[in-house]
Every structure is written in C-alpha cells, then in structure tokens.
C-alpha cells in the first residue's frame, strides 16, 4: 500500500520534472466569482428568500406560516427535535409531533424540522452540518424537510460561506428539493430526498 503511494508520488515527480517552470498559484480575489447582481442587493434575508424561492425552496417567514402549511397539507406526523422547542412551541396541539427520530419508522414521518447551521443569500442555499442536524436521515428521508434558519447566520455569497466552512466532518448545502431530469429531461422533484424543501426563517 505505501509502496503504491511511493510509486504514484514518484511518477508524479518524474512527470513534472521536465517542466521548465511550473504554473504559479493564481491570485483568486475574494468574491471574484460572485454574481454581478449581488452588489445591488442590500438585505441578506430578503435576497435569501428570493433566491431560495427561485430554486424551489418554500420559505416560511414565521412559525405560524409554517404550522398552517403543515396543517393544510395534512402532515400527519411531524418530527421536531428538542432543540427547536422555542420556535415550535405551538405545533404540538395542531399536528402530531414526535421528538425522537427512529430509523425503524423512517417512512412514517411526513415532515421533519431540523435546525440549519446557516444559509447563503446569493444562491438561496441552506447549510446543514452534523453538529446542527440531529440525524442525517431526518433531514433527508421525509417527503417534507423544513430547515430552521436564523437570519443572523445567513452568509452573503457562496465565497463567504466557503471561507466560513465549519470544522465539521459533514457539511451539506441544500439548494432546492431533490430532483432529477434523467427520464427524457423531464424535471421530477423528490427522487431520494425531500420532494418539498422548506425553510423557516426566524
């Protein structure tokens, strides 16, 4: 195994040795790949809402809006981790709530709310981490996933979010619902992950 390592590194060095000079590291100014319209947007939360909506994410401006939507869409069983109790105190009387996520009942949960680690305004992206997410499956398996994003955690640009990537073995950016166009290029949502991706801004 380490023989393979040495062999590959030696082959790389042999391949590069004849180069008269090697390409120097280019200067990558921060924000060089920002969308050009980003400069004209003043409010992160408003931009996030606009971009997330354009990407197919349903944005709720208040816990009440979120609750009404869950009720109207007959979400029978909703997973709410304890860490969200302050946001979702009123939910329990209106929809059936479970506080423990059980792998044995993956398909019985209609909707799950989980805390997000942040968001990106430029692309309308939700940021989830292992640290913020109670269970990777909870944010992925239910038909409806609603990430709870605190407005002060919204990054302005993709570059800002990359510069602030948390020290977590698993960070995932979610920009809209799970989708495919594999069958004749026709867009279908909800392939493996959520068919409805929501975001509750608080």
């Amino acid at each position: 195994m380490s023989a393979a390592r040495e062999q590959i590194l030696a082959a790389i060095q042999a391949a590069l040795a004849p180069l008269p000079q090697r390409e120097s590291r280019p200067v990558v100014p921060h924000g060089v790949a920002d969308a050009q319209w980003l400069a004209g947007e003043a409010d992160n939360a408003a931009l996030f809402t606009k971009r997330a909506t354009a990407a197919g994410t349903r944005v709720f401006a208040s816990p009440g809006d979120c609750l009404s939507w869950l009720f109207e869409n007959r979400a029978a069983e909703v997973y709410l981790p304890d860490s969200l109790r302050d946001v979702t105190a009123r939910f329990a009387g209106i929809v059936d709530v479970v506080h423990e996520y059980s792998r044995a009942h993956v398909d019985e949960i209609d909707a799950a709310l989980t805390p997000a680690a942040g968001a990106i305004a430029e692309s309308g992206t939700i940021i989830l981490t292992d640290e913020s997410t109670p269970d990777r499956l909870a944010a992925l398996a239910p038909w409806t996933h609603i990430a709870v994003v605190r407005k002060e955690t919204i990054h302005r640009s993709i570059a800002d979010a990359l510069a602030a990537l948390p020290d977590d073995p698993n960070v995932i950016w979610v920009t809209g619902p799970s989708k495919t166009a594999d069958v004749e290029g026709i867009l279908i949502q909800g392939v493996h992950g959520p068919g409805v991706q929501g975001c509750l801004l608080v």
Partner: protein
Amino acid sequence: MPCTIAMAKQLIDTYVAELPPTVQKAVHQSTAATTAKRYQLLGDDFADADALRKLAGSIRQHALEHLDTYLARAEESLTARGAKVHYAVTAEDACRAVTEILQAAGITKVVKSKSMVTEEIHLNDHLAKHGIESVESDLGEYIVQIDGDHPSHIVRPIIHKTRGDIARSFEREGLGDYNDDPETITRRARRFMRGKYLEAGAGITGANFVTADTGRLVLVTNEGNSRFCLAPAKVHIALVGIEKVVPSDSDLAVLLNLLGRSATGQQLTVYTEFINGPRRPDRPSGPEQMHVVFVDNRRTEVLASDCKEILRCIRCGACLNVCPVYRQASGHAYRSVYPGPVGAVLSPLLAGDKFQELADLPKASSLCGACNEVCPVDIPIPDLLLRLRHRAHEEHVPSPGTPPMAGFAILGSHPLVWRSAMTFGAAKDYLPLDKMPVPYLGSWLKTRTLPKWRGGKFRAWMKSRQHS
C-alpha cells in the same frame, strides 16, 4: 437532424448510422437546450465569464503542476481527521482495495453514488465477482445497471433512453406493471432505493474535488443520493482520481460557481456536500469509517504527456453538449467511459497499450473549437486532439476514412507546381467531376457543389498591390 456522412467511413460513423433517429433527435434537443441554459446563466451572472473560466483553468493547471505537494497534503489533512487514505496504481489495485475494506468490515451489500472513476475501473463487475451486491443509486445509473448498459453522457447517463425503455426495464425488474409516466418511474425508484440504503453496510462515492488544506471531499448531486449513501451506512469508501486535488476551500468559490452552471445551467447543484472524516462519536448517523482511495490508473502517464491539460477536467459535460459530433453520434460511439470531446482526448490516453484501438477518436472532430470555448477550465481540447492525431501518425496507426493528402502535400510545398495548377485548374469547371474515379470526390459531391474556379486570383491581386 441526421447528416449524411458521405466520406468513406470512420468507425464513429458506423455508430451514427445505427443510431435510431428518435435517439439522435432526443440527444440533439437536450444537449442544445442545456447549452443554451448555460450560456444564458453565465451571461446573466457574470460580466466576464471568460475571464473566470481562464482563472479556473489556471487554478486547475497550478494544482496539477504541484500535484506531488497537494496530494500529499490532502492525505495528511484527511488522515489527521480520522480518514484512512489508500493509493491504487491500477484499476485492479483500486478494486482490490475496495473489496479488502468491505471484507474486513464483513459487508456484503453496498450502495453507490454516481462516479466516473468507478465506471473506469469497472468496480461493479469486480464486486459482483466477489459476492458483494452493489446498487447504483443515481436514477440514471441504476437504469444503466439493470440494463447491463453503459452511460452515454457524463452528467446524463441515460440520455439515449426513452421513458418506454425505462418502463419496460422496471417491469422486468419487478418494480411494478408497465408505466412510462416519469413521475411514477421516479417514485418507484425512490421506494426501491429506500430499502437498499437502509440495508447497505457501505456507501461508495467518487468526489468532484478534494481540497488539500482541509481534506474536504466535495460531492455534488441533484437527487440527494450521495447524502443517502452516507446516512445509514457504517462505512464510506470514496474513489478519487489523483487529479481531483485543489489547493484550498477558497479555490472552490470559482470552481463550484462554474461547475453547476456549465453542467446543467444551475447556479449550484442541489446538494453540495463537504466531507472530511468519519462522523464524530456523539452523532447518531453517518459512517464510522471513511476510506479514500486515490486512483492513478494511468493519470501519471497523462501528466507526463503533452496532453496533461486534459486532467484539469471537472466532468461537467459542457463540451459534449456543444459538440456537433457528439450531438449526431451520442455517447456509445466513443466506445469508452468518457464520450464527447473530453473523451476523444482522455479515452485514448487512459487506454495505455490499447491506444491504437481508440486512436480514431481524436479525428472525430471538425476542430471547430466550441469545446474549448465552453470549457469551465479552459482546456485547449482542439490542440490536444491535434497532438493525439500526430501521435497516431507517428505510431503508424491505420487511418480508414482519411482522404490521402500526399498529392496536396506536393502541390503545397512546390511553388512552381502550385502556380501551374492555379492556371490549369480552371479546366475543372468543364469536367464531369462527379463521374470521375477519384476516391472520395464522387461521394463528397453528392451533397455539395464546387464553386466556379477562381484559383490564382489572390496571387494576381497581391502582385498588383506590390507594383502600385
């Protein structure tokens, strides 16, 4: 829009001739639509998208020309975070590394997320031989797998299949009665795949990028399948071509902003995942073990060649979508894992001593340059195609379908012969050229008309300018 290939046939032409017109139309329409979306989005979002492409190219070229440093640094970063790093020189070594990891963990069922390098090393065949069930979880790749087929596009593996084909395959596999509604097909795959995710012991993925400084593997999907492969499973194995390494997270700002837009006309792919280690012990889900297998499989040979720029490729498929040859021929005509312009360069290079078998691919191009213009990392594909044509010539690879150019070479290198040809060439206007037994000329003229002879006019014009 089938185009009549009137010249004597190159190998790729026989595939074009056999391609059903419905498939050709579907490939043409969807590649043209994606190309248009890409163009629109880049124009809307960037004042100078071209400068950004060139910057991305320079980031990738720098990484390749310092790969010894960055690969070792990526290994160090991953190891420090609890991942185990393996190296594989050949395809067989890579497959063996995977089975050894699985056998050591007692795993017999795995789920896979789409990865070109695993196609390249034929991992699924190898796992099947060792009694390990491996299920492709990307919808398109799953259909390719159950059909015993091959992907025909880097991003859209079943661009060559109709909903009817898929419905018949699903019926055959017992996923339900014949139903060709795309939504029903997708729901059935969802239900089937759920069971597979939950029972799999390991999730196998590739990686779009690896950052040396932090060891982050970046995985992008639209379906969310890679995330699902890495939620219930105990072991994560990532197979990564050694060329995927970039220096740091900040370089990703340029690369990710170009990847989604180039591949599918999206600002970002739906799921962009950054992984640099096994899950922490206090978390309820995620693999306890993370293995990264860095695969060479002749990449170091490509790095040593005069075509090393092709290793910049980030597998977006934009060059396939824009290519007039790919649009006519579809992916299987390239007879290898990587189709289209990138494949015409990469496939012969990765073929090793079987170079000759694929040496015709670099000629399946009009050198129009569109592939270079859309490439998010500015790979000079037409130049590389010419270098490979030269190599094929040097290695005396037979070249059917290429008109003999020796006559033109004499004309072009002897001014006296050229001048008299310019004078006497006018005779051609009076000859029945289409009936003459000159190779290739008759078939060429079937669909084209030669203009009236104007030979020598430019020389006369030049001369008149010099005198005045």
